[in-house]
C-alpha cells in the first residue's frame, strides 16, 4: 500500500485495503499466535498470557524423555518419505509427460485414469491400501504402503504440472539436438532435461510438500511408525504443553526452507537464461 502519490484515493480504495488487511490477518493470524506461544516461558501454558519468553519448548522437542513422543524420528521419517515421494513423482511424471506428447492407443483413457485418483477421498484410499495389504498378508509400513498411498496423490499433480511445462516447450530444441548428432539419450540429458529443469524442480517441490503434510492417506498406511503429521495429531490429543507450538514453528520453518530453496533455484535458472548476468 504505497502512498507516495498524495492523498486522492477514492473511499473504495480504503475499504478494500481494510478488507485485504483483514484477510491477511485471517490467513496468517492463527499461525502467528502459534509461533508466538512457542516461545512461552518455562512455566507457561497452552494459552495467553505469555509467562516470560524462552526457547525451552524447542529443547523439549528433542528431549527423548519428554512426554511428547519421538518427534525427532517422525520428523526424519517425514523428510525421508517426502524425498522418496518427490524423487519417484519426478521420475514418473517427467517420463509420462514426455511419453504423452505422442498420441498412442488409449492415451486419453490412461490420462483420465491417472487424474481420477485426485478426486478419490484420501482416507478411503488409505483404507483400501491397508485392506489390500492385510489380504496379501503384508505388514503396512510407511516405506511401502505409506509411500504408495501418497503417490496416488502426488503423481496426478506431477503429471498435470509436466503437461503445463511441456506445453510451453519448443520441440525445435530437440530437433536441433538431433540435427547436431545427439543420440536420443544425449538429447534427453543435454537438452531436454536441462531446459525443463525449472518445471522439474516445481514437480519435486509439489511432491515433497504434498507428502510432508499428508494425513488422510497416511494415517492408516504408515504402519507402526508414524510420520510427522500423525505424530502432531496424536500430540494434540495428549500433549498439553507449548512443545506442540514449538513443533508447529519448526515444521513451518522447514516448509519455508524447502519452498524457498526450490523457488530460489528456479528463479536463479530463469534469470541466468533471460540474461541476468554474463558468466
Amino acid at each position, binding site marked *: 500500500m504505497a502512498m507516495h502519490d498524495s492523498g486522492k484515493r477514492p473511499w473504495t480504495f480504503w475499504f478494500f485495503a481494510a478488507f485485504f488487511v483483514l484477510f491477511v490477518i485471517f490467513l496468517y493470524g492463527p499461525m502467528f499466535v502459534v509461533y508466538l506461544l512457542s516461545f512461552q516461558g518455562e512455566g507457561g501454558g497452552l494459552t495467553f498470557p505469555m509467562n516470560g519468553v524462552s526457547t525451552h519448548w524447542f529443547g523439549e522437542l528433542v528431549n527423548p524423555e519428554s512426554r511428547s513422543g519421538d518427534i525427532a524420528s517422525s520428523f526424519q521419517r517425514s523428510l525421508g518419505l517426502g524425498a522418496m515421494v518427490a524423487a519417484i513423482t519426478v521420475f514418473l511424471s517427467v517420463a509420462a509427460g514426455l511419453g504423452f506428447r505422442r498420441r498412442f492407443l488409449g492415451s486419453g483413457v490412461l490420462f483420465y485414469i491417472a487424474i481420477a485418483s485426485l478426486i478419490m477421498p484420501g482416507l478411503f484410499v488409505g483404507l483400501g491400501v491397508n485392506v489390500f495389504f492385510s489380504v496379501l498378508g503384508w505388514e503396512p509400513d510407511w516405506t511401502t504402503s505409506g509411500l504408495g498411498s501418497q503417490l496416488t496423490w502426488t503423481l496426478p499433480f506431477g503429471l498435470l504440472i509436466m503437461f503445463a511445462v511441456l506445453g510451453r516447450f519448443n520441440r525445435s*530444441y530437440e530437433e536441433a539436438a538431433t*540435427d547436431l548428432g*545427439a*543420440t536420443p539419450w544425449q538429447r534427453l540429458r*543435454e537438452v531436454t532435461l536441462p531446459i525443463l529443469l525449472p518445471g522439474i524442480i516445481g514437480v519435486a517441490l509439489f511432491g515433497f510438500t504434498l507428502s510432508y503434510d499428508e494425513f488422510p492417506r497416511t494415517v492408516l498406511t504408515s504402519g507402526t511408525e508414524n510420520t510427522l503429521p500423525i505424530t502432531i495429531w496424536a500430540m494434540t490429543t495428549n500433549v498439553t504443553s507449548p512443545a506442540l507450538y514449538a513443533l508447529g514453528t519448526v515444521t513451518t520453518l522447514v516448509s519455508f526452507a524447502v519452498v524457498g530453496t526450490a523457488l530460489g533455484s528456479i528463479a536463479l*535458472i530463469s534469470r541466468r537464461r533471460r540474461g541476468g548476468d554474463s558468466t
Partner: protein
Amino acid sequence: MNAPTNGNGRIEVMNVTKKFRDTTAVANLSLNIDHGSYCCLLGPSGCGKTTILRMIAGHESPSSGDVRIGGQSVVGLDPVQRGTAMMFQSYALFPHRSVIENVGFALKMRGASKDERNGKARELLQKVHMEKFANRLPAELSGGQQQRVALARALITNPRVLLLDEPLSALDEYLRLRMRGELRRVQKELGITFIHVTHTQLEAIAVADVVVVMTQGRIEQAATARDIYTAPRSAYVARFIGGQNVLTGVVEGVAGGLATVRNAEGARAQFPVDKANPAKGASLFAAIRRDRIHLTRNSTYRNGDELNAAVGIVHAIENQGTYVKVTLDLTTEEEFVAYMPDGEYFRDPIDIGDRVVARWDAQNLHLLEDASGGQQFAAADKDVALM
C-alpha cells in the same frame, strides 16, 4: 570459411508425397538442386515448403518417393549421416548453454575433447564476427547475433547441405536486409548447397540462384531468380512474385506470331504466341512488367480504340522514391499497376480519380502457360477478369 565439406550436396527429391493423417502436405513432387547452389523454396504458408525442407533434413520422412543427396538415397538416415545441417526458424539455440557451448555442441556429441571443440567453435565464431560473445547466453544476444550463432552452430560439422527454415523472419527490416546479404556471402565462400525456405518474394529473388515457387504441395515453377521475375510461367507465379500485371482475354485472331485478344471490357491487345496457334475463342493469359506501362490522361478514349491499351481511373498513388506506383481501376477485378519513373511522373502529376489510358508494347508481354481458365489456381484469390 575454407573448411573441407563432406562431398556432393546435390539434392534430388523424387516423386515425394507426404501425408499428415488426411491432409497432403506434399503431392508427388520432384525437384533437383545442383551442388553448391543457393535455392529458395518460396510460397505462402501451408504450401509444403517447410515439409520438403524437413524431409531433406531427416526430421520428417516421405510417405512415398525418394530423397537423394549426392546420388545416395538418404531416406531413413539421421541428419548426421546425411551431411546436412539445419538452421531453425527461431534458431533453437539452447538457452542453458553459452554461445561457445552451443556452437561446439555437435562436436561434444561426437566425443571431442573440450579443447578441441572450443577451438573449432571459436574459429567459427570468428568467421561470423561473434567471438567477443563466446561466453554469453543466447538470451543476452540480439536477434541478428543469435542468427549468426545459429549459423556457426550449423556449420561446425562441415555439412554439404545447409537447410534454413525462414532464417530471416525473426529479424527487423534493417537486419533482414543485412543478414540476407551475409547468408549469400557465406554460401559463396563455402560453396555448399543452401536451401532456404521463405514466404517473402523479394528475399528469394535477392539471394537465390534458383527459386522454387510452390503452392498446395506442388511446384508451380522452378527457375533462376531472374527468370522467375521476368518470365513467370503462370498467372499464379506472376501474381505471387509481384511486379507484373496479369492480362487475360479471348482470342479473336492470330497473325504473325501475335494473337489478338479481347477482354471483357472491350480492350484489345496482342499476345505473343510464337508458333502456337490458339483457336478463336480460347482464353489466354499474359503478364507484363509494371514498369513497362505508359500512362496518359485522356477523357475521351474508349476501350478498343487502339491495340495494346486499356482505359481506367486512377485509384491510388504511392511515391516509392525512385518511382511512383499508380494503381488503376480498369473495372476488371484484378489489380493493374504502373510504375512510373519519378521524373516522368512529376513533370505532369496525375491525380486520384483521373481518367488515364495505359499503353504498352506487345513485345513486352510475356505469354503465360495457363490454359483457358485460371480457376485451377485455387491459391490465387482473385478471379482473372482483366484484359
